[in-house]
Structure formats: C-alpha cells, structure tokens
C-alpha cells in the first residue's frame, strides 16, 4: 500500500506517495526526479548515493524514505548558492576531482559535512572522511586537493 510522505529536500517540501519499503535513494530519484544522487551498489558499499540528513552524511540506499520525514535532506542539487557554485563544486571542477563525475555528488556532500564539522582538516582527516566513497577514476589525490582548496575558500569567507 502506498503511503503519503512529505520530505524536505534542499529546503523545499515535496509531497508524494510511496511504498513504505522504498529507500530514500529510490524516492529521490524516481518520485522526486532528483537524479543527481546516484546508485552504485545499493548495498552501502560505494558511497555514490550519499546525501545529508540534518547535515550528517548518510547512504540513501540504506535509509527508508519514511524514516526521513521531517528531516532536512540535502542533495547535490541543493549545493549551489543560486547561480553560483558552492566552493566545493568550484574546486572539484578546477582540480580535476570530477573525472567521470558519477561518484562526485556523494563525495561533495560527504566533504561538505566534514568541512562544517572541521573547517581545517588535515589530509589524513580528509582521507578518513572520504574512505566510504569509492572513486575509480582519480586515485583520490585530486579530490583531496579540491577539498583542501575549498576548505581554504570557506575559511576565508568566514573571516
């Protein structure tokens, strides 16, 4: 039986009907057409589907949509500040951190949560924070560089 559900995604409220067994990933992509969030394994192994729930990274393939009612959900579509890219997005584009781009949304959100918690992370802290997000293209180093560059921009904005 489909159930009514109300989700707050990127500050906007969405009302939809869905089976209670659907994951947040499925509802985002299929009910809300927010396809920026990707599926890579649907077993919580690859991190491609990471989104933020009340600012904390979660794997949307492992969370039921029903559980997320009332929480603030942030997806890649909600990262940019109007027409302007978020500093993480700009840094990823500039540093070669997005090659095929498929793991990028999940990594951007995981990195955003890290920088909010720790505005000045060491390289090994970035490695640790991103260790659940698999990337097969870059070897991660340009991603680490991009997070570092974005952290600097964000710190300067805070001054």
């Amino acid at each position, binding site marked *: 039986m489909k159930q009514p559900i109300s989700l707050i995604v990127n500050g906007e409220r969405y009302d939809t009907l869905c089976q209670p067994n659907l994951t947040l990933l499925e509802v985002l992509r299929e009910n809300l057409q927010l396809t920026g969030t990707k599926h890579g394994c649907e077993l919580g192994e690859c991190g491609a589907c990471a989104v933020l729930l009340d600012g904390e990274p979660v794997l949307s393939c492992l969370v039921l949509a029903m559980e997320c009612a009332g929480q603030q959900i942030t997806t890649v579509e909600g990262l940019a500040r109007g027409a302007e890219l978020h500093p993480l997005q700009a840094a990823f584009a500039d540093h070669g951190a997005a090659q095929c*781009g498929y793991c990028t949304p999940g990594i951007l959100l995981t990195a955003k949560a890290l920088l909010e918690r720790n505005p000045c992370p060491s390289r090994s802290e970035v490695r640790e924070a991103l260790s659940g997000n698999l990337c097969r293209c870059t070897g991660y180093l340009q991603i680490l560089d991009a997070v570092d560059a974005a952290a600097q921009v964000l710190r300067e904005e805070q001054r």
Partner: protein
Amino acid sequence: MKQPDVLQQESPIGQSPPRKEGAAKVTGKAVYVDDLPVAGAIYGATVRSKVARGRLVGITYHPGVPWEDISVVTAADIPGKNTIALIEHDQPCLADQRINHPEEAVVLLAHPDREVVEKARRLVELHIDPLPPVFDLDESLDGDVRVWGKDNVIKAFSIDKGDVAQAFASAEVIVEGDYATGAQEQLYIEPQGMVALASPKHGITVWGSLQCPYYIHDALATLFGVAKERVRIIQCETGGGFGGKEEYPSMIAAHAALLAWKSRRPVKLIYDRHEDMLATTKRHPSRTRIRSAHDRDGKLLALDVDFRLDGGAYMTLSPVVLSRGGLHASGPYHCENIRVQARAAATNHPPHGAFRGFGAPQSVFAMERHLDKVAEQLGIEPVELRRRNFLQPGQKMATGQVLRDSIDLPQLLDRALTMSDYLRRREEFSRHNEEAAASGSSLRKGIGLASFMHGAGFTGSGERYLASIVAVDATPQGMVRIRASSTEIGQGKDTVFTQIAQDVLGLPSSMIEVIRPDTAEVPNSGPTVASRTVMVVGKLVQRACQELRRKLSEGGLLGESYTPTEFATACGIFHQMGGSLRVESQYQQPSGIEWDDKKYRGDAYATYAWAVYVAEVTVDLVTYETRVDRFWALQDAGRIIHPVLAAGQIEGGVAQGVGFALYEKVVWQSGRMQNAQMTNYIMPTSLDVPDIFVEFDDRATRTGADAPHGPRGAKGIGELPLDGSAPAVISAVHHATGLMISAIPMTPEDLLQALETAR
C-alpha cells in the same frame, strides 16, 4: 562567460583550463543513462544460464506473475542474426541451444513494474543438460575437452627475432620463471545500462553508458538485419569505462532493443552492481613462462616467452588483447634473440575483455618480475640490470621495428631515481629490515621499480583499417563544432579536443562545441580505447580545424590573424555565399610504417610512451598487510596537452594498478564469480592510495621524430599507468621481504602462504 574580442595569442596547449564537462558533473545535472526520463518505459531483466556448459533443452515459465503482461524475448524473436558482431560472430545474443558459460543470457523479460519483472525472472526455469566444462587455462590448451573451435585456441601467434635456440645453447646463465595475473573487474562506479526504442517502422534508437557507439551500431544492424541508417546510438554521460564499456554494451543494447522491438515500448535495462560484476567482461587472467639467457654482467642474450590468456567462452576481443600483450612482452629492452609465443584459450568463464592496458599489464608484470629474479640470481642491482639492457633509438625491437622514438631510457631512469631518492632509500630500508629482523619488529620496508613502455593507438595495421574520420563545421555565427564518435568517459575528451581546436583556430573555448557522440550526428572516429583519443583522433581534430581555417582564408575572408568577431563574420559571409563550412579529415598512416599481420613483423605501434615507476611499501609480517607508502610515476608521454587531466589519468591508473597488485581478487567457482559485490571484491579507497608524485618528461618528444604522430607531439597516456604499477609494487614487496612473488593479486593470505612456503 563573455570573452573579450581580442586576438588569442597564447596557445592553450600545456595549460590546464577548467574542464568543459566540469559544471554539469559537479551540480548533478549530467544525465547518465538511468537518469533519463523515459515516459512509459518498461523495465528489462535478463535470465542467465547459471550453468557453465550444457545444452538447453527447455524453458518453463512457472506461475506466480501475470505472464500475459510481461514481454518475453528468446532467441526465436531475433529478426536478424543471433550474434553480437565483433571480430567474429561466435557469441550469441541469446543462447538457444549451446550454453558456454554461466552468465549466458537466455531469456529477456520486461514489465512496467520492476518488482514484477524481478519476481518473473526467478520464476523462469531453464532445463540444461550439462556438458563437461573447462575452467583452467592450461587444461584448455592441453586437455581433451573441446569447448571452442577445433582446439580451444582463440588466437595464437609468435614473434621471432634472431636465433633463440642457439643463444640458449651457448649462454652462461639461464633464468626461468612462471608468472601469473588474475582477472580484474573494471568497477566503474556507474553500472552498465541502456534505454532502447525500436520498431520496424521507426528503426532502432539506443541511449546508454558506453565507450564505442559504432561497435554497437554494427552489432545492432547485424542482429536486426537492417541497414545501418536504421540504427542510432547515442551516448549518455558515462560513469567510467576503463575498457569495461567497450564491448559488453553491445550485448545490453541488443537485449534492450529486442525487448523494445517486441513490446513496442521504450525499455530501460539497467544492471545492478551484482549483475554487472557477474556478467560483464574482466581483465584476462594470464600465465607467462619466461626463460632468459644472459652473460655474467646480466646482458640479455635471448628471451623465450610463453604468454597465455584465458579468453573465456567466446572470442570477443581476445585476439587483439593477446596481440598487445605479446608485443609488450619483451619490454623496453634490447635483445638480439627473442621468441614470444602467445595463445588465448577458450574456457567456460564469461568472456574476458578489454581493461585499460589491454594485455600489456599482464606481460609487463611477468617481464619486470623476471628481471628482478635475474638480478637476484646474478647479484646485480635491479636498477643496474635494467640500465644495461635498455633499448636505444635505432635498435630493433622484437618485431624488427626500428625504434624511431627519441627516448633516452638511461636518462629517464636516472631522473626517476633522483625523484624518488631511490638508492638512498633502498640502502636505508635494507638496513632497517636487518635491524627489524634482529629486534623482532614486524614491519619491513621496501622500494622497487619497473621500467616499461606502452604502444599508442591501435596495434599493427588497426588504425589503417579503422580509417577514422572527424568532422568539423562552423555555423554562420562562428560556432565551431567538433564531430567525433570518441566518448567522454571521465578523461576530459571535450576539454582536450577544445584545446586542440583553439590552438589551430585561435578562438576562445566558448566558440568551440564538442558534439555528444550520436551516430546520427558524428562520423566514426573509431572506438574510445587504446590510448588513441588524444594522439590519433586529436590529430584528426587538428587537421580538420586547419582545413576549416584554410577554407576561410582561401576565400579571402580571414587574414593571418583575426579576432573572434572577425572569424564569426567570415563564417557568416561564407554561409551567405552558399558555401559549406563542414570539413572532414580521415586517418592516413604516416609513411614508413609497415606491419605484417601474419608474421608479426614490422612497426607494431607508430610510437610509444615510456615510463619508470617507483613504489615504496611497508609490509607487516604479523598482519600480512602491505601498504604502499609513496609512489613516483615518471613518464615520457609526449607533449602534455592538459597537465591536470593528464596527472589525473596517471594517478587513477596507478590506483587501479595498486588494486591489481594487492587487493582485487576475483574468486571463481564453477565459472562464476563468487564475490560479485563491492563488499568482498576490494578496490582501493582514499586510505589505500599513496601520495603519487607524477612527472611528465617530454624533452625527447619536443625535438624528436615521434612528434608528428599526435597533435603538437602528444602521445597516448590512458593505459600506460596500468602497465608498470603492479610490478613496481611487487618489486618493493620483494625488497621488503626477500620473497620472489610471481603472482598477483598478492592478498595478505597469499603473502602468508608465500612466507610459510619460504620458511
């Protein structure tokens, strides 16, 4: 962004402008195949044989789903020839009688509800009378069970130079060794998938995640028995390929199109990770036996290589993979007497296929490990042994090809040694290991290296047969559009093609558009494989742009130098006068390149990229873990067009090479992959990839004879890092532990076993 209307004076070659594809990929706007909104789509599923070998005698559709609402396709529904056309037509699209591997597709299903189609898939029972299978490569070659052709040999060739037998007869030192590499999964993060629309009236259109639109185009025309004009293939944004989306996409496109043809509805056929890992191709497992003859100083007098690949159940691309492997088997070394015998054998594994490096990582691993073995046996430093045997320009390679590249390998080696402080570290680690052994500490340190090359572009006469075409046109507003079937799969093709066009036309990036590969819109510039996109296709982009410029200046519309507005005005006038501003350029083999396909003699590749890689590791003798601590990657890959993207290729390739060496183990049982998920097929994470120091040394190419092959002297780069990373890592493990590891992946369990054996 509006660009100022000024003369573009600085060439963009060697700069790192922002990626053209960047914004869409960081905002979630890039549309991958499963992101396509398809109204009224039904979802496809594939019923597979699960049995490695047998005869299909019946199919039962058990009750439990509304079968009348489900589209069902079997081999009987195929309008044309039941094959996935590639080099040969031996692989069926849907098995009808013979089953040759456990992931053979037999029945296709589709329904608007994904849960229903999944339930239906489980209710199809295939009745298969089993036949004896063969899983072992050498059993296939030497045993009695015939599973392919008359002798299971998909392809065999030999390369012969000098007189090997005589050289061995008189040699002072002979060293022998056996080496092996495992299957490796490409593990692009986006699983494969296709969307299809098909009907006799409208023809066939397929959108998908793919590397080679025209491979699919050919395969579908054959499968449906229709003219090629009736088939259209469109690439979606593609989430990584690495060779894994070279050939198998033809299979998925075929299945999606058959379901669409039968149901008359759009079909979405998207694999989940498990199915993708089970069914799609992997790197060919290899076994190599090397015998080499030397004098006391280590000079290589003769080399005898027996190189074998497990091709899996059908031919697919195995002959070409075998060729590249065999042609790289003797490495960047000079030897007067060489014999390489290469064979690809059929087994009842799913077909193995293209994976970055394409046979070379397998044979380079064997040769580099063998040289370390020779060095140990002769008491010569591995670095010194390599230095004494390097190829020099003017010398003949295994196929008789005279090395025309202006490479100075001893200089490249020296530079790598300096970069990595190799000699000091080697000494320090040797000392550390002695002290650790004495004190009972479990940590051992090692540093090792590999020197190697990678042939750029297709093997032998491949490029001549392909005869790739690139078209460039300009609109009346002066927008230049590059049309090629080369796909963007993460490497930054659109950006690099734009730079090449800007270099010729002197226009801002915003006036260059790279058209998305769509067989209705772009000519066949060949597949996106073989490290050929920048060197071979990029050269065609350059030539087409030169032709476009010539056309405008011959018409007197464009002077020697011009502003973007003057260019646009010239295009406008040209169009008004009724002229066509569309030009094409087609590959022409440079003169002096000769290749004999039958005898494996001649110029195997137009030019090569050269490299020396150094790895530093820590091995823990209590946990048996190996960590790569640092990595230095030095290469001459010709002129680098975009340094940031090029470094990204090297770093990503090294990471895959580290996985190939240490983590990525496919566990087989009865021909099926048992660990077809990311939980227990382990690829490197951000904690596993070391800092990688990448350097490009293009001094030789800037002045040398190899420059004309690519635009501004660019060479192939994508596959190179896969060839040398694994042997460098294992060479460092050798230094750390004293163990002559000769097979990869070397997991902690394998290291434990090797240590127990050595005790």
